[in-house]
């Protein structure tokens, strides 16, 4: 066994991956032109879900408050635009920096606790921010949401129209680029170190790894990406509501990730697609029962596919190959 070959094979782009992007993400552009607003919401949610996968799937940091950074990014981009600067790309960059900075501050707390305390701190953080945004109503628009956002033409050319073509292409492009960045990260020495810390932090310490510094770094990065996702939502919908920060969004994103499968990036995208499409369809039929079905799906997946839907599919494919 050549170790170089083995590692290269593990990191290389598979045919499934090449097929995934055009089929799953670009196809809706043509198939459901009236569904584009849903499609761009899915792309944005998938990006947010990937940011959670970086900390939860790879580094083993559980969070029930990751929407805090999504919301911070949304408000940062929204406020920037509402105050007269609506250029989308610089808005994304601004949101990324603000959210990453917030993530960095919070990371000092996060890396010092584990398990239940970690859940409570991330949960508390989410609550705290919602209340803060609510009480700063004159600034954030409070419960009515932030108004007055005006997103300028993308690259000075493409207008964000009612039909959402620009919004979808924009969201998808940002998702794709940041996905490639994350793919790099998880296949790098840093990514391996994070997985080792997730697997056994005592041992990485005993091998000289400064666990906390590594974890702070990924948490900051993850918060920045969550912030970009939030900014995308603010720019494409031209509004920001308190829900963007809230517990429900944090919980839903965790559900999507667990449905799709943690620690594989594609699980995050798949989870977001399944969750959002199912909600759209089921809630259309009977809004009250939507949570019944998602609850059932979650239980089935956790019981029978502990590595998520994508993990289950991988097992199926491996089984098929062996036959």
């Amino acid at each position: 066994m050549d170790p170089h070959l083995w590692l290269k094979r593990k990191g290389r782009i598979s045919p499934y991956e090449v097929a995934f992007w055009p089929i799953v993400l670009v196809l809706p552009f043509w198939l459901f032109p009236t569904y584009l607003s849903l499609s761009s919401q899915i792309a944005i949610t998938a990006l947010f879900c990937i940011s959670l996968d970086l900390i939860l799937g790879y580094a083993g940091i559980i969070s029930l408050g990751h929407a805090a950074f999504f919301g911070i990014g949304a408000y940062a981009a929204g406020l920037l635009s509402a105050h007269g600067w609506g250029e989308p790309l610089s808005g994304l960059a601004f949101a990324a920096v603000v959210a990453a900075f917030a993530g960095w501050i919070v990371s000092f707390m996060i890396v010092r606790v584990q398990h239940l305390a970690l859940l409570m701190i991330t949960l508390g953080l989410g609550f705290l921010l919602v209340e803060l945004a609510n009480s700063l109503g004159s600034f954030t628009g409070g419960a009515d949401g932030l108004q007055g956002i005006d997103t300028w033409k993308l690259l000075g050319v493409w207008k964000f129209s009612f039909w959402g073509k620009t919004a979808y292409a924009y969201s998808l492009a940002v998702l794709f680029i940041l996905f490639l960045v994350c793919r790099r990260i998880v296949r790098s020495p840093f990514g391996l170190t994070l997985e080792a810390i997730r697997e056994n932090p005592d041992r990485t310490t005993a091998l000289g790894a400064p666990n906390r510094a590594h974890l702070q770094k990924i948490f900051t990065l993850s918060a920045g990406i969550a912030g970009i996702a939030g900014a995308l939502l603010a720019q494409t919908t031209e509004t920001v509501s308190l829900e963007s920060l809230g517990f429900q969004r944090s919980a839903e994103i965790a559900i999507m990730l667990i449905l799709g499968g943690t620690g594989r990036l594609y699980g995050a995208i798949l989870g977001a697609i399944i969750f959002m499409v199912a909600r759209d369809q089921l809630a259309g039929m009977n809004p009250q029962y939507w949570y019944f079905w998602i609850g059932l799906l979650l239980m089935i997946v956790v019981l029978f596919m502990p590595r998520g839907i994508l993990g289950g599919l991988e097992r199926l494919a491996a089984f098929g190959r062996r036959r």
Partner: protein
Amino acid sequence: MIAPVNALETGHLNKAFGKLVVADDISLALPQGARHALIGPNGAGKTTLINLMTGVLPPDSGQVRLDGKEITGLESDVRVKRGLVRTFQINTLFPKLTPLESVLMAVLEREGISGQWIAPLAARRDAIDEAFGLLTQLGLGDDATRPTHDLAYGQQRLLEIALALATKPKVLLLDEPAAGVPKSESAALFEAIAALPTDISVLFIEHDMNLVFTFASRITVLVQGRILTEGSPDEIAHDPQVREVYLGGADHG
């Protein structure tokens, strides 16, 4: 003449868990290149002493010195970077990673590139060669790319040692490296330890007296958190106190 600096040294270390005293005024010196055994009955405080030396536990009082420099207040990972490295009595590995990835991670951390995320893992050819070489040397080459949780127990014990060696330690603390390994294999494992370069100073905990007398040049006996005695294998084998407390009068001379 100036006395040579000890590789590792503890000065009057004390530690108690509530009323249970587990380290009672422990002063122990490990000269450069030592092959030093730490023995004592179950619960004597051997593992605790390693925890105190490596900074996993803070002592109630006393100091730890590495290469003559005080390290008592340093974090564990910083001590590792300075060359003080341990293995664990109970396998402390990365179950889902392969041995190759595990050892590679240790090499990358030592080289200071563990936080680097621009270039892919596969581009670190030297580190990969080193990790694989180390695994081959310990007989794990054929299983280097299987998940660690699939390895046989004895192989996992070897991986424990491979991980520690990947950090290029100056002082190596081995906590019962052969624990749970069949007798037929434990000698081979100790041969590998004995073959380590002499610039690595080794302290090992071991219950099997034959292994201890074969591989240690000095022995410290720990009983109820206190050093009962220290000496050459010959002295320890004939020490009546040791026989009574630890060897139960069995003839090991």
